[in-house]
């Protein structure tokens, strides 16, 4: 199977796994996990071929997608879905370094981007290869820490950093546009010295091309759909946090795409 088809296949399997996590008894951030999932598959596919490239899921509430993808790419050996949210298992609602493949704990928004910037800077200081791919949410861009970090990235010329924004348009309490809109976002990111690329956040092939960390820091604005790939929740703001029964999970997985 060619790498693109393999990545798509992994994404489909991971989607079904995320649906299982929504049926875990505690539910999960389903909408944002499904919106970011193709980005994560692409990011880990990129990172696996490149030593020293670290993927940081800054929007840690999409932990379900992270665990599902890490399982599909072979970093987490066991199936995390039956263990999600369970006592004694490391698969918490926001990821911690106890999970294989997770270097930094995230979930308190904004920090993951700064950790990624530190990691990218470490490549320069150590003379080591690699860089960082930080995956942030669009709502997350309301955090001051994001802009404080980008200020430093620009000032200290921190290269090897890709900031992917999962632009799904939603946040906990509703649409980003209603709560605190991200006015002129491409221009704002460009003003911080980032090369700005706007793409379809579900086009894995293109994502695998643009996510590769480059010398000049890059912002990838990935347009996504909340709940992507599961018709019952696709495009619905109410998909932010979902708890379903195992029977419903079976129905949703059967039609997942």
């Amino acid at each position, binding site marked *: 199977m060619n790498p693109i088809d393999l990545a798509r296949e992994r994404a489909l399997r991971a989607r079904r796994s995320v649906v299982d996590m929504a049926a875990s008894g505690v539910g999960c951030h389903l909408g944002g996990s499904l919106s970011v999932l193709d980005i994560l598959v692409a990011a880990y596919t990129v990172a696996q071929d490149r030593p020293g490239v670290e993927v940081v899921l800054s929007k840690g509430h999409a932990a379900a997608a992270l665990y599902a993808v890490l399982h599909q790419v072979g970093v987490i050996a066991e199936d995390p879905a039956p263990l999600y949210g369970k006592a004694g298992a490391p698969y918490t609602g926001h990821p911690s*370094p106890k999970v294989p493949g997770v*270097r*930094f*704990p995230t979930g*308190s928004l904004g*920090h993951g981007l*700064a*950790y*990624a*910037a*530190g*990691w*990218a*800077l*470490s*490549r320069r*200081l*150590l003379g*080591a290869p690699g860089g960082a791919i930080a995956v942030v949410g669009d709502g997350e861009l309301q955090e001051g*820490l994001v802009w*404080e*970090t980008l*200020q*430093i990235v620009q*000032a*200290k010329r921190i290269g090897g950093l890709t900031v992917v924004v999962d632009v799904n348009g939603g946040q906990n309490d509703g649409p980003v546009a209603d709560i605190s809109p991200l006015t002129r976002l491409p221009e704002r990111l460009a003003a911080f010295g980032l090369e700005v690329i706007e793409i379809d956040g579900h086009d894995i092939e293109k994502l695998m091309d643009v996510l590769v960390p480059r010398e000049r820091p890059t912002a990838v604005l990935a347009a996504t759909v909340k709940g992507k790939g599961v018709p019952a929740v696709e495009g619905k703001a109410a998909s932010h946090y979902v708890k379903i029964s195992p029977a419903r999970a079976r129905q949703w997985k059967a039609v997942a795409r």
Partner: protein
Amino acid sequence: MTLSGREAYKEELTALAAGDPRIVCLEADLGGAGHPFARRFPERFLNLGIAEAAAVDIATGLASAGLRPFLSTFAAFGTWRAAESVKLGLGYQGAPVVLVCPYGGASGGWFGPTHHGLEDLAVVQSLPGVRIAVPCGEAETRAVIRSAAAQDRPCYVRLARNEPYEAPFPPAGPGEVGWVHRGDGPACLVSIGEKPAGLCSAATRERPDLSHAHLCWVDAESLAQAAGELAASARRIVVVEEHRGAGGVASTLALLLPGHEVLSVNAGTSWLSEGGDHDETLAALGLTAEAVLTAASLTPTLTQGAT
């Protein structure tokens, strides 16, 4: 000439970096100008500007990659502005970042409460696993920086402003009690930091029967090691610290010694918005040798400036 703690830190870190390529020096616009580290190792020196929370997170990222970042900013900003970054990086992740913060306590004097660090230890003490040092004078500051570089542990180092301090006692290491004066009376004064050491020395000149112990490392782990020796020395322990009562060293020590009488002479509860140098500010906050003597002599309920 004796160096202030701030200058001693800069000199010692620069000397250490010659033998340890992992050391990275980070500043946040409050000490970077003319830094000897910047002259000697410009590629490993980064002044990240006025962005403390991001600076702590970036330091955490560097530490995760095997580097040993030392990050300096004022105590009020390093602990409070960046509080969550310190919690998640130094606490939760245990990242071996050394946060070196001058302007601890009321050393900022006339700069006012925005620049006082009277609650910094409470923030850091609440984070399990983070080591805390409050060194006195040049030699102890240098020893703390060397120790922090060798520990591979997260550390918080609280310094004062620019005033040099001639310490009349040798440096105390982690878990060690530095005995400044041994009396045969029922109370032992425990000083934390330079000004409190001076107050305790003044108090023991007045009352030679009081003992005076000095602690440099004051995280719960270090205090647990020192607690037994302190408890064996006297019935009453009077901790003198440039900090609020809540979350200070006395409160931690009291939890470690539930059967002992642990009192605190501290900076009280007021938000002092008036001028004055370091000594005048402390006096206005009630942190005086008289308050120390009162706490050593009277019942806890009657002590002035003590909680």
